[in-house]
């Protein structure tokens, strides 16, 4: 498939996962990500892979635990309420150092919420889901094209760091169709062999153990500390962001995922109206690209976080700018998508207010 094809974000995730060597998918349908399961159900049997619709999200996520422990490249996907159910298994996988890729195509919440796009799971993705001292890498694509590259990278990162990697999209990104080329690119990453996996000893080595239970405090503390050394290494090397027209920007917007695209339109329109605007788009949400915020707001009088939520990423933005400039917020929630003109009006209101 080296030609351009028209694909949905959800299909792009599924095909890119297969190209990355994922042969096990365990899931449970939920709008707006069901196309991932539907695509996997059609494709996996044809390539010798396994698609399994579990009886619940809890089961699906624990099947991922099993397959990951056996060394397989494995993925599950869901939308917000389903991710809440998968949270327990995420914690266990983090605690057992198991690599896997988890997709959250976010819908409006809380509770059953609604089926329209939202970014109200930022807290959950970057700070929460399950219990315990742990992190997962969180990637936020903003186009179908980016989904393709990012999905491949997610599997590599999961294997290299032996931890779950989450791709955080939203209903808009999952459902939108864009032309893309599926090409296998060399990541340049060195993915180690899974010598820790429970693949059978063939009586040639000691047996491997997949476990997250450590009763002895000193033993558990040592394991957690080692895990946090790994997290520090990720924070030092894996942060990614895009800066758009920030060099001379007097006012900076910040947004991730699909909302960043809307903000780009707002930036261009503001510039056409003589207001020097810019955009910082975090691509990794954990690790959060904090340093980018001081570097790209040198000429800015203020920064505004634009989100499809009541303001979640804004907390990381405030920590990143550390009081150097005022931080504002504009958001829509409940499944509503902010329009560029709403953002433009808000910026003008703030800038006008400063004068």
């Amino acid at each position, binding site marked *: *498939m080296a*030609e351009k*094809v*028209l694909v949905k974000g959800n299909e792009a995730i599924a095909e890119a996962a297969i190209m990355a060597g994922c042969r096990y998918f365990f899931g449970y349908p939920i*709008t707006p990500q069901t*196309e991932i399961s539907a695509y996997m159900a059609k494709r996996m049997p044809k390539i010798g892979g396994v698609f399994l619709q579990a009886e619940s999200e809890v089961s699906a996520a624990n099947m991922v635990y099993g397959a990951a422990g056996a060394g397989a490249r494995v993925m599950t996907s869901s939308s917000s309420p389903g991710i809440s159910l998968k949270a327990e298994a995420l914690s266990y996988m983090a605690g057992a150092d198991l690599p896997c890729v988890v997709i959250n195509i976010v819908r409006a919440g809380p509770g059953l919420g609604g*089926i*329209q796009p939202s970014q109200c799971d930022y807290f959950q993705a970057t700070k929460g889901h399950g219990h315990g001292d742990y992190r997962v890498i969180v990637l936020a694509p903003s186009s179908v094209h980016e989904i393709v590259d990012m999905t491949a990278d997610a599997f590599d990162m999961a294997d290299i760091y032996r931890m779950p990697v989450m791709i955080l999209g939203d209903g808009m990104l999952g*459902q939108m*169709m864009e032309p893309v080329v599926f090409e296998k690119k060399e990541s340049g990453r060195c993915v180690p062999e899974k010598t820790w996996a429970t693949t059978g000893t063939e009586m040639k080595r000691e047996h491997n153990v997949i476990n997250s239970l450590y009763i002895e405090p000193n033993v558990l503390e040592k394991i957690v500390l080692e895990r946090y050394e790994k997290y520090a290494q990720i924070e030092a090397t894996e942060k990614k962001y895009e800066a758009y027209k920030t060099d001379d920007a007097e006012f900076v917007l910040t947004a991730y995922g699909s909302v960043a695209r809307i903000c780009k339109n707002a930036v261009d329109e503001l510039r056409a109206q003589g207001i020097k605007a810019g955009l910082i788009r975090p691509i990794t949400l954990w690790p959060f690209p904090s340093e980018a915020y001081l570097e790209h707001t040198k000429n800015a009088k203020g920064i505004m976080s634009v989100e499809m939520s009541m303001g979640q990423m804004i907390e990381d933005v405030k920590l990143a700018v550390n009081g150097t400039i005022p931080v504002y917020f504009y958001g829509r929630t409940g499944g509503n998508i902010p329009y560029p003109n709403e953002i433009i009006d808000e910026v003008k209101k703030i800038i006008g207010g400063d004068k």
Partner: protein
Amino acid sequence: MNSKIYITVGHYGSGKTEYSVNYALHLKKTYDKVFLVDLDIVNPYFRSNDARSLLESSGITVIAPDYAGTNVDIPALPPDVMRIFNVDDAAIVIDVGGDDDGAIALGRYKRFFDDADVSVSLVVNTRRPLSGTIEEIIEMKENIELSSRLSVTDLIADTNISDETTKEIIEEGYKIVKEVSKHLNIPIKYVVSAIDENFSEEVNNKLFKIERKLLKI
């Protein structure tokens, strides 16, 4: 009842809904009574019902699930679909959900379709995954026929990659669909295009020009 029923089936994302909406508007030029039935019980995003106000202002009657486009969008068929089997002198376009999963909804009306003047168009976008090759298209057609209990009567070549569609892409898609047409002995009804181009004579003869009504970027 002497009305004509046009059913649109195909891979989800192939362009069924854009085609159905445009086709209903096209039929309105010759028919006084035109119905568009949104029978998509699979995907609540992007559906005919989204073009309801445009269609209704053009005098087309839209029949859609009661809760279409709301947070309680559930896979239930609208009861007033039955109206279409009791109306005379009308053209009725039925926009079906994607794949064989969506086509299941048609099976329920089989005994009514058996007594009506029905054509079933398979919309094919060869630049969509899982419907790019002759084998994949034939497999999709067979699966849709199995679950809908209807036979595909014509093919619609709707190859496109959204805004980046070129003349070459449409011509290339037509060639693949033509092979399918030969293989299955089913005629090509239209070649759909949203762009104005100097197409080959063959494509030009079957050209159905559409305007994108659902997604305007």
